[in-house]
């Protein structure tokens, strides 16, 4: 069965808006995705019929909200195949999830220890570890990226040792599109009992995420990059690890008993969820993941691979274009530069033609600089993009290049 892209485009109201008088072509899905009607409706329905603080009241609305909220946790746990529902912690997003682990890890890091990351990390999976190492006089070690955009695996293996207290790396690079060999690296790390955190920000909307199969200790993602609302996301953690880590924010349901002298924290998952939870957006996230589930993530991946291939081969026909990141395993993200042209100029002209792309260092400054670049143009596809949008983009790009050269 062909992927029903024309039909499902109707689910996304924003896709029928115009930009500078041209139909919107949204190729900035790596930054954030657009939302289907179903997700928007879920927010509306919640606020119109269910809104309440959860867990706390003995009244009807509070019960509705609590049941919906915990139902969402349950579905999301199933969706990523967590072993237990309480292994799903609701956070503000990927950055928040990673910071939570890095903060809580303070008590597990000593002077001289090592934290291992890769050279392709987003700032959100770099700076929290860098600051942790700085505080603890530990070492931040960095697995290098090869010319084609893949991790240097032989070197990675050598960098693993009992000194490494945590390995944190991205499932998929937001600049290069590289799908990293997560399972393999996790298994290698486990030989030294090193816990592994995976930054799943760019993965959750594009590939199947099965945390038990990956066997990682932590997995972080944001709803807004998977067709869900802004303002929420998930930290998955193996319960043995989540039980071990101290909480780093305090207040609300995360407390079981408190006196002025002493606090007993609540059990998982509440222990890590301080303050009134963001019920509406969590329900929106559930709806978004159900939407993906209905389409089938493998169908989506296959469809997006088609967009990637078509765009890649079309781009390579344009003289002066260089694609940054040619890993064998890639998702539908293409970073490129055009010789003699500043990415920002291209981005501006493409925008005039209705096409949203991203330019700059994509919050991965060390990576982009290590490639000798001051920025790239990035197109990143979502499930609603089409081959004819890609063709329009290629034509527009040629026009822009002609104007600029």
């Amino acid at each position, binding site marked *: 069965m062909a992927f029903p892209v024309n039909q499902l485009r109707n689910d996304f109201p924003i896709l029928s808006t115009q930009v500078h008088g041209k139909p919107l072509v949204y190729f900035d899905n790596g930054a954030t995705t657009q939302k289907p009607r179903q997700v928007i409706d879920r927010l509306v329905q919640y606020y119109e019929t269910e809104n309440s603080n959860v867990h706390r009241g003995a009244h009807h609305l509070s019960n509705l909200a609590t049941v919906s909220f915990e139902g969402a946790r349950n579905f999301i746990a199933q969706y990523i195949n967590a072993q237990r529902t309480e292994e799903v912690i609701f956070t503000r997003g990927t950055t928040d999830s990673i910071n939570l682990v890095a903060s809580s890890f303070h008590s597990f890091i000593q002077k001289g220890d090592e934290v291992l990351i890769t050279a392709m990390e987003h700032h959100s999976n770099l700076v929290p570890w860098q600051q942790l190492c700085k505080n603890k006089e530990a070492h931040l070690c960095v697995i290098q990226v090869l010319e084609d955009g893949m991790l240097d695996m032989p070197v990675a293996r050598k960098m693993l040792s009992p000194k490494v207290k945590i390995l944190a790396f991205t499932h998929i690079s937001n600049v290069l599109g590289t799908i990293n060999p997560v399972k393999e690296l996790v298994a290698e790390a486990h030989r030294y009992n090193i816990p592994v955190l995976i930054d799943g920000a760019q993965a959750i909307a594009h590939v199947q995420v099965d945390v038990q199969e990956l066997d990682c200790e932590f997995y972080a993602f944001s709803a807004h990059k998977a067709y869900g609302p802004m303002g929420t996301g998930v930290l998955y953690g193996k319960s043995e690890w989540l039980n071990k880590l101290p909480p780093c924010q305090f207040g609300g349901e995360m407390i079981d008993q408190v006196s002025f002298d002493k606090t007993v924290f609540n059990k998982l998952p509440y222990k890590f969820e301080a303050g009134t939870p963001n019920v509406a957006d969590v329900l929106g996230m559930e709806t978004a993941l159900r939407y993906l589930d209905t389409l089938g993530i493998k169908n989506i991946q296959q469809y997006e691979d088609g967009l990637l291939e078509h765009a890649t081969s079309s781009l390579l026909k344009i003289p002066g274009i260089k694609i940054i990141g040619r890993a064998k395993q890639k998702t539908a993200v293409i970073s490129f530069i055009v010789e003699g042209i500043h990415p920002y100029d291209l981005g501006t002209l493409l*925008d005039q033609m209705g096409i949203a792309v991203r330019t700059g260092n994509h919050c991965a400054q060390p990576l982009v600089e290590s490639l000798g670049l001051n920025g790239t143009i990035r197109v990143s596809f979502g499930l609603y993009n089409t081959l004819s949008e890609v063709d329009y983009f290629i034509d527009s790009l040629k026009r822009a290049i002609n*104007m600029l050269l």
Partner: protein
Amino acid sequence: MTIKEKAQAVVEEFWMFDDWMDKYAYLIELGKDLPVIDSQFKTNNHLISGCQSRVWLHAEEQEGQIVFTADSDAVITKGIVSLLIRILSNHTPKEILEADFSFLESIGLQEHLSPTRANGLASMIKQIQLYARAFQLKSNQL
């Protein structure tokens, strides 16, 4: 021509184009034509922050008037700075400090620029005014 007259001329040039793609094409041509800044001035000292692209701006006094030269690594940015320079170069500090920048609104530039670029534009204008003030102070002290 006064600053005001020059600005008016630029606004009229811009109104000739219906299509923003044409306006951009014009900015790009301006950018390409911008006399390149002396490379000794392309230093961090002359760099204006607040842009995704980099802008270097240099000012010299010539017979009581300020002459600006500039460069940028992005050509549209260069076009914008070229516009500003065309209007504001060869004027006295006093004239520059009294200049009315609302012509930018008439062009529609500010509204059409991204916030990053609008910030960049604001930084450029601020820098131009700083230079003018510095030269004014200097000549008052003489």
